[in-house]
């Protein structure tokens, strides 16, 4: 039996679940937690929280309450935990939501995240699918944080590249979501573990195709160099394998950009599909937020290939 008020669930690999309470009010629920990808516990807390909150923004909703999810080794220094929680709680506060509690268990490794509840007018939900031919695709944060974090793990990332990655990962998608709210949005998602192309694939939903401009992808400059030096990740290769057959990459696209397009992101930006005639206007507003962003492609009628990068 399907509850008619259960509007969005797992079926279309959407970002969060949506349940309608009244005609003009629905709750949005999401949960996300993971092990550290940076050394600094405070930064890790910020990144994990920004990442969990992001799913709510990707639905077009506003976060209201959040609960901590914590796995922490009993023998580890509790100051580390308090820094993780400090970072997380600051991001929840910045989001304008309330940190309402949480649950922690003893575990061999540290993991942290949030369960977030938000609200939305059920008639204004952004779903993953719904791109229309003639739309342009906007990306609100640069790509490449996965490559930089992985290079950092083996001591190959510069301090500057890591600083950029941390800045992008800790930036809430709140601000980009507020910008796009003023425009007709056909589809929206946040770019995370499946990489840019993986999330684009979900968004096109077997009804439309897309052309991606390989030379207009906002990215961390050093991520490109690291990829060209083959500091490449296993996760990006898994994404590549999964998308085999869907993606055609043109001969002029450099190898580094290819890897960046498959690179899994932590707390990545929003990928938004809006009508072509408002694209430049949205971009102009997004650029005021101060993060590298851009129009990265266009939606076309379903063709032989789902995604062509050129």
């Amino acid at each position, binding site marked *: 039996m399907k509850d008619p008020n259960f509007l969005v669930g797992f079926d279309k690999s959407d970002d969060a679940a949506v349940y309608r309470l009244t005609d003009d009010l629905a709750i949005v629920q999401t949960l996300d937690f993971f092990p550290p990808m940076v050394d600094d516990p405070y930064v890790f807390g910020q990144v994990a929280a920004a990442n969990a909150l992001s799913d709510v923004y990707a639905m077009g909703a506003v976060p209201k309450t959040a609960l901590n999810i914590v796995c922490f080794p009993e023998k580890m220094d509790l100051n580390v935990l308090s820094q993780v929680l400090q970072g997380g709680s600051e991001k929840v506060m910045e989001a304008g939501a309330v940190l309402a509690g949480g649950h922690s268990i003893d575990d061999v490794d540290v993991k942290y995240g949030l369960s977030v509840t938000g609200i939305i007018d059920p008639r204004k939900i952004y779903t993953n699918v719904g791109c229309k031919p003639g739309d342009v695709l906007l990306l609100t944060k640069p790509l490449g944080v996965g490559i930089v974090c992985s290079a950092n793990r083996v001591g190959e990332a510069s301090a500057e590249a890591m600083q950029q990655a941390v800045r992008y990962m800790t930036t809430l998608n709140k601000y980009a979501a507020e910008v796009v709210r003023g425009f007709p949005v056909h589809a929206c998602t946040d770019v995370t573990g499946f990489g840019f192309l993986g999330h684009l694939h979900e968004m096109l939903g077997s009804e439309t195709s897309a052309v991606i401009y390989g030379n207009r992808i906002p990215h961390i400059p050093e991520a490109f160099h690291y990829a060209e030096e083959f500091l490449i990740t296993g996760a990006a290769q898994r994404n590549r394998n999964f998308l085999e057959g869907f993606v055609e990459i043109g001969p002029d696209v450099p*190898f580094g950009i290819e890897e960046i397009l498959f690179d899994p992101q932590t707390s990545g930006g929003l990928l938004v599909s809006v009508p072509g005639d408002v694209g430049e206007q949205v971009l102009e507003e997004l650029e005021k937020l101060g993060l590298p962003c851009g129009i990265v492609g266009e939606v076309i009628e379903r063709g032989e290939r789902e995604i062509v990068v050129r």
Partner: protein
Amino acid sequence: MKKTVDATGLSCPLPVIETKKALKEMSRGELEVIVDNTIALQNLEKMAKQMGLDHQLETINENKHIIRILVGDTAGEEARDVEAAPNVSGKTVVVLSSDTMGSGDQDLGRVLMKGFVFALTELDRLPDKVLLYNSGVKLSVAGSDSLGDLQKLEERGVEILNCGTCLNFFNLTNELAVGSVTNMYEIVQSQMEAGTIIQP
């Protein structure tokens, strides 16, 4: 020349990094790399393709895969290799006479020095000795940004020598965390006998 890199148990990007290092040391021949998962194999294949090197893949079983990379008959490359190798005999001694690198800005100098010591750990051919004197000894004490890199060098056989007078002067003798203490006689001797002295 045939070489093998066993990258089992390593996760990406380490197998690729190890392979790249091994390739750098080879001018021709076959490099065999063993990995324990297909993702690492695919990443190595991607690299070989990008580098334009002939290669073959073989899967022994689920947990053992081999890529054989042929390093070609590239006379030009060999010539370059010879050119790149310093053609001197005797020991290579790195002299760190300050905790900063270059002059102009102290903060920048500290960042540069940290990068310099890290880069030493990445060299294909490590120096034989690192001499630290004056504020250079601050790099060897607890809390230094370069401590980990210096310890890495020491573990790999590089002799780390700190000026005792200098440690005394900065009141850091008890804080020394890597290498041994030396005197002016040895500082002079080491530099006299060196084939190459590197001073950032």
